[in-house]
């Protein structure tokens, strides 16, 4: 399978792609209301504020009330989209648990500024724990799109899906590599590159890095498969186990703490169904710091080279 071509490194951000997509959807579906905690400029929802202001609801800097109130709005037939930065959504994680998930309300929490991709704002703004927390809550669907095109398709899919969703966007410019006719299905992993020696499972901004790493590895005659896990929950266990058993070695790549994130998620599946040697690329249980996203990726060893190194290491364990 031919790998998708990477176009630049500073494309449109995932938050902007989300903002445009939800704005277009809202124009055609009056049930959609977008709730903001005074960060519309940062989450992309300024597009909604401009294009369909009557569906943009300013809830102020009060995330707990915003999340529980969204559950109440959903009761009246609306589709509330709660938007804020990922770390601030964690202020309302218990509100998500009881008001949204336990009640199985049709509320979508869409969070920008995940991971070290946040860059210079530093540790307080870099959310490295969200996937672990949201995926541990029953009824939640957890989605992490990889590029602006997939973001647009995923946004439409979460509106179609009746039930609670957490979705990550992203702050920094993201390379576009998906084709415009790609299909996004909740719960389906995407095979971006087939391979025989090792499988790299990646999510979000790490997918582009995994594709680049696979290119580098191919020059060393290492044939790496790259699988985009854009739905972290429910995990596509069939695809994950199929590739793990076929290639016999696994690397996971996430802009998130390795505790509870994608690596844990894949390990849970493989330990039960198809154990294989595995290396995790992710933040090793620490907080971030200020720096550019690329500098941080290198410093915290979640860059392309770190994926290459992890593949080299896991192949020795095969």
């Amino acid at each position: 399978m031919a790998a998708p071509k990477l176009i630049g490194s500073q494309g449109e951000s995932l938050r902007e792609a989300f903002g445009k997509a939800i704005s277009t959807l809202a124009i055609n579906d009056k049930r959609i209301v977008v709730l903001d905690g005074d960060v519309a400029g940062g989450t992309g929802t300024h597009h909604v504020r401009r294009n369909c202001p009557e569906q943009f609801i300013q809830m102020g800097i009060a995330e707990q009330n915003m999340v529980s109130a969204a559950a109440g709005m959903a009761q009246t037939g609306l589709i509330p989209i709660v938007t804020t930065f990922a770390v601030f959504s964690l202020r309302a994680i218990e509100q998500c648990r009881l008001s949204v998930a336990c009640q199985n309300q049709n509320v979508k929490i869409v969070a920008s500024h995940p991971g070290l991709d946040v860059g210079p704002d530093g540790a307080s703004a870099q959310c490295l724990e969200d996937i672990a927390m949201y995926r541990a809550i029953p009824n939640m669907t957890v989605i992490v799109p990889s590029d602006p095109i997939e973001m647009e398709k995923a946004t439409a899919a979460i509106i179609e899906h009746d039930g609670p969703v957490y979705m990550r966007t992203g702050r920094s410019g993201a390379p576009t590599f998906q084709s415009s006719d790609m299909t996004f299905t909740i719960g389906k992993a995407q095979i971006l590159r087939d391979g025989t020696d090792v499988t790299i499972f990646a999510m979000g901004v790490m997918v582009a890095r995994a594709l680049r790493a696979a290119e580098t590895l191919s020059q060393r005659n290492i044939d790496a498969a790259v699988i985009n896990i854009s739905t972290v929950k429910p995990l596509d266990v069939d695809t994950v186990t199929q590739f793990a058993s076929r290639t016999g070695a696994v690397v996971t790549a996430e802009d998130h703490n390795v505790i509870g994130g994608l690596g844990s998620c894949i390990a849970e599946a493989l330990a039960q169904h198809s154990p294989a040697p595995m290396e995790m690329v992710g933040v090793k249980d620490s907080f971030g710091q200020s720096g550019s996203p690329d500098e941080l990726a290198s410093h915290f060893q979640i860059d392309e080279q770190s994926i290459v190194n992890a593949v080299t290491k896991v192949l020795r364990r095969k």
Partner: protein
Amino acid sequence: MKKTIENKQQLAQQARQMSLMSIYNAGSGHPGGTLSSIDILVEVLHEQLDITPQNQLNVERDRFVLSKGHSAPALYAIANQLGLMSEHEMLTLRQLGSPAQGHPDQSMLSWLDASTGSLGQGFSNAVGMAMGNQLQNFAAQTIVVLGDGELQEGQVWEAAMCASHFKLRNLTAVIDYNKLQSDDFNENIMGLEPLSDKFSSFGWHTQSIDGHDFYELSSAFNNARNSPKPSVIIANTVKGKGVSYMENIPSWHGSVEMTESNIVDALTELGIESDSIPAFLERFSIRWQ
């Protein structure tokens, strides 16, 4: 049809008997706040809101949220009076498999408008319902009942600010102000006064009433409906109301076990003739399975 004050008093008395029976059957529960809130809930559910088994699928229906979810036994007893819940379900509170969960759980009871039990969240749920109704021009009313200790949660004041900002005149909050919380009197834990001034300064229409007087309750809800602002009714109540050995005693907040002598004494005070009590206990001591 409008109910007389005597009708409501009878309903409240029966709800007190049944909610305590359910707590007795469960071996645990929160009797103090259950008893303080019963008159409020009778007024809200029998008189103020249109909540019936028939209108449960109507998205434009009135909504009720018991934000102080630990008063669930009171809610279940009145839901049984309204035909929303069977006697068997109501009396099997807190038992494995019963829909009468320790705190209201929407996944087990479809007529509930909110799952509660984590203080503060129900208030925001109700604010969201009122916003949804306002945005879609639905005529529905939303009433939420909060505890007083619950007001110590920051989320309550986020919600209060929000309701006022959006001028939610279709929302009424009732505070079951029994002055006691889990461990002690409010004032010894984290003082709430001046409570009425706090809500006024947040932009709410406020009233302070006797929460056990059906005339005052009824008048207060009428005033609330006519207010252009969200309205709060501070209902002064007695924790453990109706059972003298529980009244104003913090340890009856719960979760506590009621012994056989506790329930016999309580039922006696709640109007069951002494010689009828053995048969009453026999009839209403129920296991889910």
